[in-house]
């Protein structure tokens, strides 16, 4: 029996319209999926790290340690949330809340399969980019309000890094947008039904993946956290659930970034044999695995090298790539 056909409820839905219903159901799915997905990803990260480092990783809780992160989450929920003295209490409290906003909103316009999309938007790609800028604001808030020099250095680095890497990110995205003439996610995917964009735009795809790695503050661009210098960067003073919110946001941003890359370059849900959703998930998790692989292989860049890489290498190449795309498509 369909819940929406019940009396009263039917009226409510009829009144509010199906768009809102889709949004409510979608957000419920997101609210369940995001924390579980993060728990799973943390486990995968630890297992990948373990096997790269010639050790098994967590093995104690559950078979092969698969329940380890759930236990960790319970532990983090039970921990005291310490607010150090001399902090800016309001900002300190708000920062971890604000950081999860883009992690949840970013899912809205992504089309996982032809039928699975919370809301089709004309500006879907732009929406994700604009919301992802909120997370940097919250990192700055966290670093500033912590009253800790490590946090502040981490936050300042984060702002400079994000400003620098958003430019190649957007430029490489523009190369695809020029080809598809739309910001709608599903149309971008549909344009790749025969050939994936990565074959037309290999340079843009590589720049996109590098820049999103930097945007998500993942190694080798994790200067914001840089545990060997800054202890743990902007969230040094955060404990318990507030810390886990930063953690949650970091991993969810990674999934959103991988989904974006899948939509823009890897042909979204297109693939043989399996249904679209499975192909999408395979591509997303493969990209995440690559990012983890890189993290456990490379050392961290130094700050000047990081900025030089963005301004002197990525941006010029992305600009040239965009120019060539534009000339080839529009002029010729």
């Amino acid at each position: 029996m369909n819940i929406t056909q019940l009396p009263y409820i039917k009226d409510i839905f009829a009144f509010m319209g199906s768009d809102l219903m889709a949004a409510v159901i979608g957000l419920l799915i997101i609210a369940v999926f995001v924390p579980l997905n993060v728990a799973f990803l943390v486990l995968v990260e630890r297992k990948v790290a373990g096997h790269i480092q010639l050790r098994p990783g967590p093995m104690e809780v559950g078979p092969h340690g698969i329940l380890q992160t759930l236990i960790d989450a319970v532990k983090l929920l039970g921990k005291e949330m310490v607010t150090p003295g001399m902090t800016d209490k309001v900002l300190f409290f708000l920062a971890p809340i604000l950081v999860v906003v883009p992690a949840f909103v970013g899912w809205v316009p992504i089309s996982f399969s032809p039928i699975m999309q919370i809301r089709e938007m004309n500006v879907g790609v732009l929406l994700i980019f604009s919301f992802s800028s909120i997370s940097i604001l919250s990192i700055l808030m966290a670093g500033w309000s912590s009253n800790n020099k490590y946090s502040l250095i981490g936050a300042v680095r984060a702002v400079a890094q994000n400003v620098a890497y958003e430019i190649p990110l957007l430029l490489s995205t523009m190369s695809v947008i020029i080809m598809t003439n739309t910001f709608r996610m599903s149309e971008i995917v549909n344009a790749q039904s025969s050939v994936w964009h990565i074959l037309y735009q290999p340079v843009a795809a590589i720049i996109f993946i590098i820049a999103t790695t930097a945007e998500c503050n993942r190694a080798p661009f994790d200067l914001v956290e840089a545990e060997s210098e800054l202890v743990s960067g902007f969230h040094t003073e955060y404990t318990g659930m507030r810390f886990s919110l930063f953690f949650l946001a970091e991993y969810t941003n990674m999934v959103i970034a991988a989904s974006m890359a899948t939509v823009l370059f890897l042909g979204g849900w297109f693939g043989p044999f399996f249904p679209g959703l499975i192909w999408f998930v395979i591509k997303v998790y493969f990209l995440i695995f690559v990012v983890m692989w890189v993290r456990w292989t490379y050392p961290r860049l130094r700050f000047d090298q990081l900025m030089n890489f963005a301004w002197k290498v990525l941006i010029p190449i992305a600009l040239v790539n965009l120019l060539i795309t534009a000339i080839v498509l529009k002029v010729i």
Partner: protein
Amino acid sequence: MLNIKTIDDATVNQRVYQLNLGPQHPSTHGVMHLLVTLDGEVVIKIEPIIGYSHRGHEKMAENRIYEQFLPNPARMDYLSGMIFNHGYCMAVEKLCGIEVPRRAEYIRVITSELNRIASHFIGAMDYAMGLGAITPFLWGWDDREQILDLLEGIAGSRLTYSYGRFGGVRNDIDQAFYNGTRRFIDRLRGRFWDYENLINQNIIFIKRSKGVGVISKEDALTYGVTGPSLRGSGVKYDVRKNEPYSAYPEFNFEIPTREAGDCLARYQVRMAEIEQSLNIIEQALDHLPPGPVRSKVPRFVTPPEGECYLTFESARGAVGFYIVSDGSRIPYRIKVRAPSFSNLFAMTKICPGHFLADVIAIFGSIDVTVPEIDR
């Protein structure tokens, strides 16, 4: 590396801030405090504050007979404990004029070199971890673990050994140790290729290391830098060659040096020394002489009045034991020259002008052991 701009005091007061790295910090190998004065992220001045793990070994020596002090040297530099342990024995033997059987000398060389490899693995891989690469650290840890197992088999402990005795070593090596060491040498030789791929050709690793923290020959001389940090600056000085002790003159090995003097050079010297140590161990195992491992010494040694200075090469540089005896069973004074002490002070000279991240790199590449500095 940047050049420090000359800025007047008023500007300095506005822009400069101090950052405490430590005493508890992920990258200060042990309890150490680096007070860094920064302009943005550029280091202006760095002041190590030491003494957090001071246990008073030199005072302890004055309150113990020579035998009772035997466990202490290994606890000064816990990463090359075996070398320190043998070094102290050699110093007392020199003071008392005790002869050591050749087999014992060979065993000392084998165990010391195994210990040196273990220590160099920590030194080199900890440096990589300071740069943010965690995987090499655990790979090195894995290889080091084999050495600890081997040494545990003969010395009984895994880190702070008291294997040496005045006039030899405590017990002979057994067949298990002999075979295990052979197997370990083969295994490690096969692993160099992995390290080459993972670290030595890693572009970020090279970019982070090259030209960072250059120790010039002149600085090395005036600051008394020794060990791999010195050999990375192109000075071919190794106590094992320059002032041969124990059975080292009988082995054929080279002293690897690099001219650059930067972090990469120091790292490369360490890795090259691991290979040389393997050669030494192999030669020693090939020509292990038969005979006793301990000469007849009185139960309690009583050195004649006088003093002696003995240096040996630990994994960090030239260690010296300066022992003053007043003819009694208790040493009058034991002074330990700690190589990390001088090497760390040289760091205050080379750090200014580098980035904060480079401080961690330089600190890791110099490879100090804090308990050795504090003693």
